[in-house]
Every structure is written in C-alpha cells, then in structure tokens.
C-alpha cells in the first residue's frame, strides 16, 4: 500500500469543486473541515470505475469525522454530535482554517 497523504488525526477539508458525473463526495460536505479518524485503504476510483475504466491508479480512502455544527450553520442537535463519511484522497486537502479545538 502506498503511503497515505494524510495521517490519522489530520485536519482535512473537502474540496469545494462541483464537477458533474459520478462523484461520491456529498454536496453537503464540500468545503467542510473535519479530521481523519480512520485510514481505510486503497480502492479503485469510483469516478473511473463508473465509466468502465477499472484498472486505473487506486486512491487512498479515509474516514473523516465532522462536527455537525461545522457542517450545518443551523444544526439543532447537541454540540458534540458528529458525522463520519468515507472520502477518497482526491477530494481532500489540508484544512485551511485551524479546526476548532
């Protein structure tokens, strides 16, 4: 397995990009910051697999945890509620703002 670009605990942000096509980074998380809570491993890129291209370079897949209050400006639950999603490395960049401690 290649070295993951982001280690466990890394503060990461989902890129704010809006391409068409088969994308697995949900719209509601684009531009949101969270932290890497699990490194899942390398998998085929769904953005290629979905179009019949099975043998391309694999991508590292991470699980990223977000605070709900960082995702929804009007989040009505409690401050410690979270969201965890799997994100492929091509959608992640280092968080631009310091994740709130």
């Amino acid at each position, binding site marked *: 397995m290649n070295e993951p670009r982001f280690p466990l605990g890394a503060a990461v942000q989902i890129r704010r990009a809006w391409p068409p096509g088969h994308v697995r980074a949900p*719209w509601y998380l684009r*531009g949101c910051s969270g932290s890497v809570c699990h490194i899942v491993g390398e998998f085929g890129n769904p953005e290629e697999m979905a179009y019949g291209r*099975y043998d391309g370079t694999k991508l590292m897949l991470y699980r990223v945890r977000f605070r709900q209050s960082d995702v*929804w*400006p009007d989040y009505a639950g409690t401050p410690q509620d979270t969201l965890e999603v799997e994100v492929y490395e091509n959608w992640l960049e280092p968080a631009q703002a310091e994740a709130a401690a």
Partner: protein
Amino acid sequence: MALRINISLTHTWAMTMDKNPHMRRHHDMGGMEAGPVDRAEHDYAPWEKRVDAILRLLSDPKRRILRVDELRRGIEDLGPGAYDELSYYERWIASISNMLIEKGVISIDELGRKMAEVEARHEAERAKGGTT
C-alpha cells in the same frame, strides 16, 4: 476566530447553490428538506428480487460484467424525473439495461424483440385462463 471561519466556509456553498441549483445532482440529497419518514414496508416482489439477483450475478468476481459503480452511475444519470417516478428496482433494471446496451452485452434490437416475445407469452397465458 476559527469557528467563524468555518461557518463562513459552510455558508459559501449554500449561497452559491441558490444561484446554481444544478451544482447538486438530484440523487445527492443529504441535508435537503423532506417530510416525515414513512416507516411502512413492502414485501419485495419476486421480480424485484430477480433484478437484485441479476445485478449480483453480473457483478460477481466470476463475471465482473457490471460494477456497482456503473449501476449507481446509470441510476444517477436517469435524471430527476425518472429518479422520482420510478420505484427502487425500476431504477435498477433501467440502469442495468442501459449499461448492458452500452457495453454491447445485449443489443437494443434483441432486447426489444425479447420484450415483445415475453409480453406476448404473458398475455397468451393470461388468455388461456378462459373467459371470466
């Protein structure tokens, strides 16, 4: 300071989305407004399970004719109207059919002919039951 920056980042896409609703694809529905969850369940009809079985066979390691990613892409590309009007397995079989045509596994011509044959057979069997 950090918290304020985070809030303005999350607001940015929300405001952009209002001007460009097509940025969000129809199936990508996390966070959208919706009514109460209807907990009623239906038993899966045999035809629905057969669709599931067809997909499992096409995508299994022995065959790898269709990937789940392709099924999903095909469903997403059905577009908002079909996505909302068709039932879950109707979307699946629509996607599977389109994908198989695209890949040349079946041709449009033979699919059309087979559908007509199946329909005629079905109607003949219904008719065999005799009059009311």
